[in-house]
């Protein structure tokens, strides 16, 4: 894959305000939104391909930047509410404007992004600067005309969905009906109408009557891409629950429960922690679900609840390091996962700025690195390898040399083309596969 490093939002003061916390393509892939720890959203737009400069095709440039969320203070708990953007989801485009939902731990906001590239000139009562004209100087009437101007992108908050969540929001998902969306926190999932901000319906509630009995939380959730009544949510115990909103108002009873029995030979005190699902994504076809837990990605068939149909090892060499990873908290890192447009390849991040891709058809996998050194513009990415001892080839990295502070938690895949966006701490990398640009 050819790589081009796009945007380095380098936080020189070290405050970490620009650590990227979410990445999302819109439905056409023309726009790419990123959210960061400082509550900002940056939208990139793909340059239209021009025949004159074929090598310049498809570059992403900054389209708009705005402050989505500000830090808040919860007076009742005397705790700060972080402005970090947890998730961004685009709405399907219905007119000239683009809309997206962005959320921090507590509040979801609907933003409308519009372009202005013309402005009216030739008013009768006002002059060019907007001052009222002296009416005695007006001798004839003119019709104002629209003249082109420099493109201006305007972003306005259209809705603010507040006070819906006691716990931290971890996911939002827009329904295929384009009218509703859901937001999930650790214990509850709410259903909102995009036009109504003062109320929401609670559709899942796993909070026990006695908080002492709490042993499981919701970690991610998503609507089915085609069936507007179906959604899935994952838990910290490694299970998936498919729920049907037609069954009852409160979907505490799942329609299907997807759970793989524990492998007794691999049991340890960390078994539960590493089975916790950090991300769940439906395939574009709607037939499969992709889950990420600490060491693997799994493909589940909606029709089979007993076990996944495919399991891929992301970094099994960490299995012997779980105790250290527990101590330094890395074992709680939440990695995301992604499908390509044709559901034939899946991708997820790892440590040392590595990310992994698995081809479901050929069963081949590759490890690539997102770093400044390895991705000068137009550079070809070189596959990397982690050696676990035994034979070590040149350029291999040993497990002990891995940098666990460089983690790729957020990745996104263009909906139709082989273009991926990788967030590595405060850098965004965009890689394109020039050879196989079209999906097949």
């Amino acid at each position, binding site marked *: 894959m050819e790589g081009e490093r796009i945007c380095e939002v380098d936080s020189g003061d070290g405050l970490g305000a620009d650590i990227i916390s979410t990445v999302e393509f819109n439905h056409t892939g023309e726009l790419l939104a990123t959210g960061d720890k400082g509550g900002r959203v940056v939208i990139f737009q793909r340059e239209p391909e021009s025949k004159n400069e074929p090598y310049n095709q498809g570059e992403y440039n900054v389209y708009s930047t705005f402050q989505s969320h*500000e830090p*808040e*203070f*919860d*007076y*009742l*708990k*005397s*705790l*700060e*509410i*972080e402005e970090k953007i947890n998730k961004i989801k685009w709405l399907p485009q219905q007119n000239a404007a683009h809309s997206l939902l962005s959320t921090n*731990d507590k*509040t979801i906001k609907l933003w409308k992004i519009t372009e202005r590239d013309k402005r009216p000139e030739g008013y009768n009562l006002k002059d060019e600067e907007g001052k009222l004209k002296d009416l005695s100087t007006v001798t004839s009437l003119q019709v104002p005309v629209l003249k082109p101007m420099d493109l201006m992108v305007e972003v306005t*908050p*259209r*809705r*603010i969905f*507040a*006070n819906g969540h006691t*716990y*931290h929001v971890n996911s939002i998902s827009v329904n295929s009906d384009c009218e509703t969306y859901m937001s999930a926190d*650790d*214990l509850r999932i709410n259903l909102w109408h995009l036009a109504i*901000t*003062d109320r929401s319906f609670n559709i899942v509630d796993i909070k026990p009557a006695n*908080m*002492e*009995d*709490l*042993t499981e*939380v919701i970690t991610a959730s998503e609507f089915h891409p085609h069936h507007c009544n179906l959604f899935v949510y994952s838990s*910290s115990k490694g299970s998936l629950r498919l729920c049907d909103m037609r069954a009852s108002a409160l979907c505490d009873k799942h329609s299907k429960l997807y759970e793989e029995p524990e492998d007794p*030979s*691999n*049991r*340890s*005190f*960390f078994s*539960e*922690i590493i089975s916790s699902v950090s991300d769940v994504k439906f395939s574009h076809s709607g037939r499969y679900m992709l889950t990420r837990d600490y060491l693997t990605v799994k493909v589940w068939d909606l029709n089979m609840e007993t076990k996944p149909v495919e399991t891929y090892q992301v970094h099994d060499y960490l299995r*012997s*390091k*779980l*105790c*250290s*990873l*527990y*101590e*330094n*908290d890395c074992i*709680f890192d939440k990695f995301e996962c992604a499908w390509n447009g044709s559901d034939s390849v899946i991708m997820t991040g790892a440590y040392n700025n590595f990310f992994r891709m698995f081809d479901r058809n050929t069963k081949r996998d590759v490890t690539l690195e997102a770093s400044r050194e390895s991705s000068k513009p137009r550079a070809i990415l070189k596959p990397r390898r982690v050696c676990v001892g035994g034979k070590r080839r040149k350029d291999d990295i*040993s*497990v*002990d*040399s*891995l*940098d*666990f*502070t460089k983690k790729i938690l957020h990745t996104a895949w263009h909906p139709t083309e082989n273009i991926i966006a990788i967030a590595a701490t405060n850098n965004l990398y965009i890689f394109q596969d020039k050879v196989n640009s079209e999906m097949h």
Partner: protein
Amino acid sequence: MGEEEGLHQTPFLDTMFVRGLKRKCFDGEEDIEGTLAGIKAIPSYNLQRQSLLDMSLVKLQLCHMLVEPNLCRSVLIANTVRQIQEEMTQDGTWQMINTQSTGQASLDRLVSTDILCRSSRDHQAEGKHGPAYGTFNKDFESDQAQDNSETMSTASAVQTPRNLQSNVWEMESPQENKGNFQKSLDQIFETLENKSPNTVEDLFSEVDNSYYDLDTMLTGMMSNTKMGHCDSLETFSSPTNTASNSNCKSDLNDLDHIVEILVES
């Protein structure tokens, strides 16, 4: 093993693991006696397990110092602690650790008492475990007489296992067990739980006096008790009907104003 970077805060645990003495980490069903053979060279399973328990308890404590604890992480750590304690209960080993003052698990301390377990508890063969690590069961009430000012674990009376959760975490005599690292699991989760504005009175009534000595947990609770005026709280804490274009920043300014009023009163 290669360079010691990043991953090697607990070298002995990983080393033990890599050497293959246990290919599985902390597998409770493995023969414990086998580990005692190399007890001087390699830390025993019990010590490792205890170390993991201690680490987990520290993590649960530390998460309260953060701005707002990550509930998923807390739940996973708490489940790990429960798992360890269940296993220790089945093994019949309860150990009081004095790591705060000494900095290390003090083996001498583990063997120091010889207290019988509760009669209702059926113990597994006590002779199974090496003497160095103590096969005793501590009677919780006897413990209180000892100097427990810096204990970390919250071992409780080992009674019938009907509800291990409440037994394990119950503090029968809070005054005796002050110290930075003792709290019950239910109180951990209660502080995470948001009190709705309608139960402001309940919020204050649940404040437990025994925790006023703990500086970690009080960040949330104590500052709430200072607030005092229920009416003012209800005014600004009721869910607001935000106008569609209202800015969070203006909300913050309003709340600043209200807090000024409260503080002055």
